[in-house]
């Protein structure tokens, strides 16, 4: 997730330095340290799904730097891996800095060999050097450097140790001769495909090897750069394939691994260590079939206490009642009254639907503290390494929805922000999975802002009401996921997920990440809050609100059994559901919602599409048609569920 996204335009040579490496090895930390720009850093694979760009001063020159999503191979298996491969293939890359996990040299070197094959100048950063040491692993750096002909620098990125040395390495751009020879039948295929390819930024040999591996994602590149040759290339590839029983790509990979294993056994020594660390024990317990469940419940309970009670209760009270009602609003009214004693402008700023009294109060006093508390908690979870373990716990349930445990990552991220999470669906491998998760995010996963308001409102009713709300939303999502997996065509993918070690989160990263996200929230949400307020203001002044309320009353009053005033909350809920939820909160505080009405209204609002920005992200990631279809399904469905719930409450005579 990258909240910036603006390109760094100016740098001296025009050539980029690209950071590459396996997932979760610390590329974004090094990127941040070199460029001073923050790219989101977490402790699970797939944090970066988008490319960040920045510039660094290296030896008096401005150097453009690209941070890329982590890969296990440069023959891509998922969309985020393709992003990285395409950077190497299409961008003006001057050199590569490969960030490696020192304790996992085997997998890192697999990528190094591919970079060397591409004939790129490569520098290696042996990152997490401390973790390797703790595990009794030592690397003979000099020998490694000599074997590969590349400069190798041990680093600990999170402590900024040795990062300054990296810049020296960019000056000595070491190329290296490819150290790999494939079986002659394959080498022959490589030579023949190579002959069909034009000059490219990376070596034709490396592209030939990718094509021989059966990399379907390259077909666009072939059509553009070697038009009309696709057929010939495929003939050569299938010709080579018939000579082997295993897929050629697999054989190529095995040859590489053999080379890697030889290097590793030469440069790495492993010392046996006795005791396991506390973090390892916690890591194991959190995905244990029995102990994992109480740990999950404890995490949820802590979240409820920290975000719901402390954030939505205590701090919202302080901001709303003390700061805004006590100081900001009266003060604003006094100032505005000096200029506009009454009339349209007065109402626009401090009236019932005023920008200060409604938009700012909602955005800053109600939602911001909640979002802040949530992001602190969430960042802690992210950095600890708990989330992939959660994926292990829920894999079986997600299988029923045509997904696998990996899908829990975007879903949990959705609790932070559904818009960002929709983008993170890229880490899923098949289109079907991405569509289902996008739908579920839009339908049922409440984002932090909304979640906080909801928890605050439900907390004021009872814990029992909270269970009803959560139960209904989870069951509805599960049923929709179940049906979607039956209806939608396509494949589900294998569950293969890397579990990073548990780590003690770094407070500085949590603080920085929370700040970046809060800033992003302010930029993203406040304009929409103002827009929503303007819509309401206009509707109110033109008396259209009355008509809308009258028009909506069969649904709102009769079907959902809610007060007519809640119509406006639902109208702004179209723009952002947290804004709508904040509107409901005000109604509840004014004593206009009974406990049962609160639960019905919140369930309905939760099932709305999260916000306009999320809708645009759905269009960007899934296409206009899919986004519109999903929205057309979601809004009526949300109201339907709300109505059904109201009916059930009445029949069962439920009260809270």
């Amino acid at each position, binding site marked *: 997730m990258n909240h910036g996204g603006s390109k760094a335009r100016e740098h001296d040579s025009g050539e980029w330095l690209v950071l590459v490496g396996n997932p979760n090895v610390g590329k974004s930390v090094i990127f941040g340290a070199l460029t001073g720009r923050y790219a989101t850093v977490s402790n699970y694979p797939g944090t970066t799904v988008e490319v960040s760009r920045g510039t660094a001063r290296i030896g008096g020159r401005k150097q453009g730097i690209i941070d890329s999503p982590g890969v296990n191979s440069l023959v891509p298996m998922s969309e985020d891996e393709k992003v990285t491969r395409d950077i190497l293939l299409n961008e003006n890359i001057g050199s590569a800095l490969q960030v490696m996990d020192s304790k996992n040299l085997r997998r890192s070197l697999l990528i190094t060999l591919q970079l060397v094959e591409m004939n790129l100048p490569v520098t290696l950063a042996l990152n997490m050097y401390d973790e390797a040491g703790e595990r009794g692993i030592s690397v003979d750096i000099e020998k490694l450097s000599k074997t590969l002909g590349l400069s190798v620098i041990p680093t600990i990125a999170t402590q900024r140790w040795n990062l300054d040395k990296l810049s020296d390495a960019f000056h000595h751009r070491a190329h290296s001769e490819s150290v790999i020879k494939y079986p002659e039948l394959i080498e022959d295929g490589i030579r023949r495909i190579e002959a069909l390819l034009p000059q490219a930024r990376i070596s034709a040999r490396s592209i030939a090897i990718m094509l021989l591996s059966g990399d379907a994602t390259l077909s666009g590149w072939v059509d553009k750069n070697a038009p009309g040759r696709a057929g010939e290339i495929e003939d050569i590839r299938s010709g080579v394939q018939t000579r082997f029983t295993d897929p050629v790509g697999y054989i190529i990979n095995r040859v590489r691994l053999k080379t890697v294993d030889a290097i590793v056994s030469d440069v790495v020594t492993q010392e046996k260590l006795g005791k396991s660390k506390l973090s390892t024990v916690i890591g194991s317990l959190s995905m244990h079939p029995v102990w994992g469940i109480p740990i999950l419940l404890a995490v949820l309970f802590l979240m409820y206490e920290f975000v719901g009670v402390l954030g939505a209760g205590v701090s919202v009270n302080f901001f709303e009642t003390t700061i805004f009602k006590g100081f900001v609003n009266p003060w604003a009214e006094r100032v505005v009254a000096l200029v506009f004693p009454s009339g349209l402008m007065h109402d626009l700023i401090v009236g019932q639907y005023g920008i200060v009294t409604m938009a700012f109060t909602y955005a800053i006093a109600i939602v911001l503290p909640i979002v802040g508390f949530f992001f602190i908690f969430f960042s802690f979870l992210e950095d600890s390494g708990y989330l992939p373990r959660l994926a292990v716990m829920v*894999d079986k349930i997600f299988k029923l929805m045509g997904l696998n445990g990996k899908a829990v990552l975007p879903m949990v991220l959705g609790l932070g922000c559904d818009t960002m999470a929709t983008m993170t669906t890229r880490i899923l491998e098949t289109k079907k999975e991405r569509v289902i998760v996008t739908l579920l995010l839009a339908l049922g996963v409440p984002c932090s802002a909304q979640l906080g308001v909801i928890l605050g409102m439900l907390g004021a009713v009872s814990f029992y009401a909270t269970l009803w709300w959560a139960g209904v939303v989870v069951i509805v999502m599960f049923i929709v996921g179940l049906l979607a997996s039956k209806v939608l065509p396509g494949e589900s993918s294998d569950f293969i997920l890397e579990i990073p070690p548990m780590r003690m989160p770094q407070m500085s990263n949590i603080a920085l990440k929370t700040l970046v996200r809060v800033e992003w929230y302010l930029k993203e949400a406040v304009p929409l809050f103002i827009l929503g307020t303007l819509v309401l203001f206009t509707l109110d002044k033109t008396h259209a609100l009355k008509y809308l309320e009258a028009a909506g009353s069969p649904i709102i009053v009769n079907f959902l059994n809610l007060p007519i005033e809640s119509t406006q909350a639902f109208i702004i809920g179209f723009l952002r559901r947290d804004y709508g939820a904040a509107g409901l909160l005000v109604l509840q505080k004014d004593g206009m919602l009974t406990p049962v009405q609160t639960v019905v209204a919140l369930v309905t609002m939760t099932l709305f599409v999260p916000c306009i920005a999320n809708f645009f992200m759905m269009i960007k990631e899934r296409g206009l048609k899919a986004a519109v279809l999903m929205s057309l399904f979601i809004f009526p469905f949300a109201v339907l569920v709300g109505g059904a719930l109201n009916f059930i409450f009445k029949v069962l005579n439920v009260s809270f």
Partner: protein
Amino acid sequence: MKQDKGVEEVLEFVWSQRERGSNSIRELLAIEEVAEEADIETLRRMAGNNLIRMDGDAVVLSSDGEKLAEAAIRRHRLAERLLTEVLSMDAESIEKNACSFEHTLSHEVTDSICTLLGHPPTCPHGLPIPKGDCCRKTGGELKPILQQLSALDVGETGRIAFIVSNVHSRLDKLGTLGIVPGSSVRVHQKRPAFVIQIGETTLALDPEIIKEIYVKKIF
């Protein structure tokens, strides 16, 4: 009842032709190895012995022939597995030796090899190995050398011997994570999802994938 080598060979080829979806006598006799051992007269004789039935250009196995073919195929493919995994021979000498093995192995030896190899479902070429009595019975005195990774207990380590998967992308993906024959993996937990350790990498994997990985246990 010991059949001569040529008849067995023909039965095997009728079997493997059927796997490819063909039952043509013309195509059968056009196969080099068949032509060396048999002609149309041999087939007629086999039909007379009630091993096969012929109808125009079509040939099918009778129930007696089916049993013999199944056993021969099983011996051949198990021999291939044995020579590949345990003796690490190259492809050419495997084929030569597997062919002579299959005509000499007794029933008991065949089942022992099968057990030793952990009842492998396929030959190195990915073709199915017919099940024997030993595959249906569990337990027994002979401990298998190779077994499915899923059969290891939590905390045990195995060296990967082979991975049987028909899904190419799965092999590729596992390969990039270092899961290839020769690597050692440790079972970290089996529920709620399978988690294994390979070097300093911890991975959660589908149980279906775990079943496709055959390992030799390391003590």
